[in-house]
C-alpha cells in the first residue's frame, strides 16, 4: 500500500504515513513514492510514520537507511515515528536509533484505538 504523504510548507516537514506490510515486495513502490515527494518538496525534515504499519522485515530497515542517506545528501533531517512493539524490536536489533531518532507522538494512540 502506498503511503499517504503530507507536506507542511510552513515548517518544511514532509510526513510519510506508511501503512500495511513493508517487505521486499512492497518496499520498492513505497520508496519511489517517498523519493518523488522528497525531490518535489525538498523538505528540511522527513518523518516516516509507522503507526499504520502492521508488519515489517529488513526491507523496512533498508527503506529507512536509504531515506537517511538521501536526506543527508540534502543536508536535511529524518525521524521515525510510532513503530509498533514488534517493529521497534526489529529496529533495535538493526541499531536504527544510532543514526535515526525514533519518536512516539500522541497521534499514534489515536490511530491504534
Amino acid at each position, binding site marked *: 500500500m502506498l503511503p499517504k504523504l503530507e507536506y507542511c510548507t510552513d515548517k518544511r516537514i514532509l510526513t510519510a504515513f506508511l501503512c500495511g506490510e513493508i*517487505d*521486499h*515486495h512492497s*518496499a520498492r513502490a513505497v520508496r519511489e513514492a517517498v523519493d518523488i515527494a522528497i525531490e518535489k518538496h525538498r523538505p528540511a525534515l522527513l518523518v516516516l510514520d509507522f503507526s499504520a504499519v502492521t508488519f515489517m522485515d*529488513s*526491507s523496512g530497515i533498508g527503506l529507512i537507511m536509504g531515506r537517511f542517506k538521501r536526506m543527508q545528501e540534502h543536508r536535511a533531517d529524518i525521524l521515525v515515528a510510532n513503530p509498533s512493539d*514488534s517493529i521497534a524490536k526489529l529496529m533495535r536489533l*538493526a541499531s536504527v536509533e544510532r543514526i535515526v531518532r525514533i519518536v512516539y507522538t500522541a497521534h499514534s494512540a489515536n490511530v491504534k484505538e
Partner: protein
Amino acid sequence: MNTIQNSLKLIIPSHSENEGLARLAVSGFLASAGADVSTIAELKTAVSEGVTNAIVHGYRGSYGNVTLEIKLFKSGRVKITIADKGRGIEDIERAMEPLFTTAPEEERAGLGFAIMESFCDKLRVKSSVGKGTRLTMEKYIKNGSQG
C-alpha cells in the same frame, strides 16, 4: 519428544507477492498451535527474511520454486525449513555477516541472517553453488493460553 503434532508444506513460485503468502501460512499455522503473539511476530519475520533471500538471491535473474515446511512437535518445538534450487551461496560465513549484502542497489540491508538468528533458537544453513540453499530454523513456542 520427537512426535509430530502438526505439519504444513507449501511450494510457491519465487514471485515476490508470495513473501506475504508464506508469512500468512506461518502465522496461521502458529496461531492454531497456540503460539503467543510475539513468537508469531518473530517467526513471521524470520520466514519473511528466508523466503525473500530465496527469491532475491537464490533465484536472482531466474525463477523456481521455494519450499516452506513447518513442523510442530509435541514438545512445543517448531522446525521450519525454507529450500530453493537456486544458485546457492558461495561463502556462507560471509553471507551471514551483518550488513553484508550482494544487492545494495535494491536497498537490501544485509540483515536477513542476523534477524533469523536472533528470532530463532537455532539456525542452520546448507548450501551448494548451482544447486540451492536450505535453511532450517528451530524455536520452542510458548503457548499463548498458558501465558
